[in-house]
């Protein structure tokens, strides 16, 4: 009974929220949390489309599984990086990690 459009609009809203978090938060870990939200929004989209368009196939779910796996890997590496940076610079505030400026 729930039309597809609800899921997709929901996913879009979630995605935008995550995007806002990525762009506007100071702390690096907070940025990572925003990234997680975006990935989840994508997952919702994938599964919704699977359920509503090709429920006999299984490609949608497989893809969602892969996304989850990749997200996990990415979080692990990212957090390791944050820790390493924290050790060097004593900060994880994104604005202060600006060595690549002119």
């Amino acid at each position, binding site marked *: *009974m*729930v*039309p*597809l459009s609800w*899921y*997709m*609009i*929901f996913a*879009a*809203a*979630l*995605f*935008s*929220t995550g*995007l*806002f*978090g990525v*762009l*506007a*938060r*100071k*702390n*690096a*870990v*907070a940025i990572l*949390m925003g990234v*997680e*939200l975006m990935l*989840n929004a994508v*997952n*919702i989209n994938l*599964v919704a489309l699977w*359920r*509503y368009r090709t*429920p*006999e196939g*299984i490609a949608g*779910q*497989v893809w*969602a599984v*892969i996304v*989850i*796996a*990749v*997200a*996990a*890997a*990415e*979080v*692990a*590496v990212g*957090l*390791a990086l*944050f*820790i390493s940076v*924290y*050790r060097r610079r*004593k900060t*994880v505030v994104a*604005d202060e990690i600006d060595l690549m400026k002119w």
Partner: protein
Amino acid sequence: MTVQQILFLLVAAGTLGSAFMVVSVRNLVHAALWLIAALGGIAILFVFLSAGFLAVAQVVIYIGAISILIIFTIMLTRNVAIDPGKQMNSSWVGALIIAVALFVLNVLILSQWSEINKTAPVLPAQYDALRLLGLALVNPNGYVLPFELASVLLLAALIGAILIAWGRR
């Protein structure tokens, strides 16, 4: 307005609210907790979408591992002075505008699609999504390769993360 729709709306609202709190609270630990809430809401939606395995996987991996990891990192990277200060950076207005603009764009584009308002088709009887998923993941004509590659990726991430965070004293 059917029951499913009302339930959906409730869950969606909760998830979105949690997400919004994630990106706006000052205290990072609170943000992590709100993240857990949002992820839980996502899991419920997976159940609504008849992807049971995914719901469980979501709970186990995301909530059970990733969120905990995030909390660990928050703890490990705290400054001595716990005063969080402002949590939005200098260009948060631009970011807001962009986020909203992208959302609007998205929706507009979606509304062009003719089939956007379809309802879910009926699942066949005896539909065992889990079994199908399992078979697909090991089927050479299926998705065994991405599956294996994903595992290699995890291994590499594992090793890489250890190396990066090793640190020399």
